[in-house]
């Protein structure tokens, strides 16, 4: 093919020279996202914090000073050299319980969101892209799910299947996909009108390829942001349910059911070591997850100049 008569023009050369000066040349998308994420200080600190919490949860049997179920003898004792965070009303070591409780909270958060994100994303993609009757049917299902009072439903389901960690994750995951489905559908509705999707159709790409390789990467930012809020939300719902006695059942420790102790007025006012650490852990984890979501949103957008 004869290409010699096509002179690249000066406008292009000037632009290229300018951008050639930029440091990133051959980096992949993942590398670019990582580089941008690392510039978001709060997100990096949060990520480090969350990794630490996860590691502590993972290696709980090695890190916890006591068996979380073992009765030590001191009932509701304050912090001391033997028990850094004191003991609870049944004389179990509070620090050990806090460490083991991290496992429960993180599992609930990540597990429930993983389930709801997959369901919500797939249904949202289909609903938004297919349109018409398919869209109507899926969105009506979403409406039905959203109009159930979730707490009542959880109560009923828990009383039927019993309240275990797995059941809790499944219930929260299967109930909370609706928000994700709506967000994904909304983004797909606007993206599918764009010319690059039309171009993909004209190029003869299959519908799954267009959905997952062309549209999905462009809705990833809202998905990730929503998912991080979802993790935070699931951790809090678990805490709330456990506080009400519907969540993870004692003697298994969760941050939520450790807070239950604060239901008693004496504990609330005179034994803060029984509930403050659990509350602080919930706040820190939820905050960290949200900051990571913020950082990811900025890092995932190639158009942001950071």
């Amino acid at each position, binding site marked *: 093919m004869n290409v010699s008569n096509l002179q690249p023009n000066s406008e292009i050369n000037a632009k*290229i020279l300018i*951008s050639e000066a930029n440091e990133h040349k051959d980096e992949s998308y993942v590398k670019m996202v990582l580089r941008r994420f690392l510039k978001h200080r709060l997100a990096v600190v949060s990520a480090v914090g969350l990794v630490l919490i996860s590691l502590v949860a993972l290696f709980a049997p090695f890190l916890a000073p006591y068996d979380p179920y073992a009765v030590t003898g001191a009932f509701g004792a304050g912090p001391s050299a033997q028990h850094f965070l004191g003991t609870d009303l049944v004389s179990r070591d509070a620090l050990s319980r806090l460490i083991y409780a991290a496992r429960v909270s993180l599992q609930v958060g990540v597990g429930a969101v993983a389930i709801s994100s997959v369901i919500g994303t797939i249904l949202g993609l289909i609903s938004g892209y297919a349109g018409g009757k398919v869209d109507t049917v899926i969105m009506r299902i979403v409406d039905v799910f959203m109009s159930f009072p979730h707490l009542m439903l959880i109560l009923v389901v828990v009383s039927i299947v019993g309240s275990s960690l797995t059941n809790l994750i499944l219930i929260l995951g299967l109930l909370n996909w609706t928000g994700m489905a709506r967000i994904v559908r909304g983004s797909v509705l606007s993206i599918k009108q764009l010319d690059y999707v039309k*171009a993909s159709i*004209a190029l*003869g790409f299959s519908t799954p390829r267009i959905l997952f390789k062309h549209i999905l990467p462009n809705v990833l930012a809202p998905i990730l942001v929503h998912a991080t809020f979802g993790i935070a939300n699931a951790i809090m719902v678990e805490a709330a349910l456990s506080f009400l006695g519907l969540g993870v059942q004692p003697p298994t420790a969760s941050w939520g059911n450790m807070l239950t102790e604060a239901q008693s007025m004496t504990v609330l006012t005179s034994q803060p070591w029984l509930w403050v650490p659990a509350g602080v852990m919930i706040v820190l984890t939820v905050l960290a997850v949200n900051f990571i979501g913020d950082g990811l949103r900025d890092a995932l957008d190639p158009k942001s100049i950071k």
Partner: protein
Amino acid sequence: MAQVTLQKNPLIEVKDLKTYYPIKKGIFSKTVGHVKAVDGVSFSIYPGETLGLVGESGCGKSTIGRTLIRLEQATEGQILFDGQDLTSTTNKNLVSMRKNFQIIFQDPYSSLNPRKRVKDILAEPLLVHHIVDPAQVNKRVDELMVMVGLPRQSKNRYAHEFSGGQRQRIGIARALSLNPKLIICDEPVSALDVSIQAQILNLLNDLQKQLDLTYLFIAHGLGAVKYISDRIAVMYLGEIVEIGETRDVIKNPKHPYTKALLNAYPIPNPHLRAKERVFIQGDVPSPANPPQGCRFHTRCPIATQTCREGKPKLEGGVHKAACFAVEL
């Protein structure tokens, strides 16, 4: 510019094409009418030529382009590509046929996926359609970049790192990747600076010569179209009102709408400006409820009772016009 050769078989033949969009109302989405975006259009495009398609916004010219390559579903009529009817072909057959016709879009910003690098944008069609051996993909991507005047080194960049003109070049390279015969240019220069417009038009011209391409060039004004087209079709409200060789249409327009369009184009030299200029007033009537008779009669300066009652046919050999006032 390629010579118009009417004796050749047309590459694509459009017969009485209609594309309607339903207007839906109420909670049960009842169809209460149709927007007749394209209403009974027939024309042919011959191999190697450029057919310019002009008309005001909303007249259906982009819809024709998109219907031709089945981005929109035709309501009625036939589109024969190399003798095969595109409107009724199976989806499976369509996928392999899509290689033959591609599109270049107007907006260089929304036409490229912001999450993909240029090399991914260009390599994907090559891999999906097995255009070249997987080992040769990189080489082919480089070739495509050079062909449209982009430096090879910039292939690792994302679309937003380029200027409008460069992005349009990427869009052209993507359209070329499948070695198509026909390219629909849907107002490819309207969104660009005037200086860049000329570069892109020259590029399209050069590519046509090198690769033996056929263009359907859509534009809203006659400026770019008369430069690049061998023939011009003028559209008004979903119908073609005049079609003919570029020189004839520009020098000797038959339809009053074409005259008005030509008048709307400013002449840079004040001494050459015509004393009499035909102006048209008012807006385009709604394509959901087009006027009876000749569709242009509501705005036509020379409309008579005949125009309000009867519908003129597109007639007159090579240079056709749909107007009662025209001496054929």
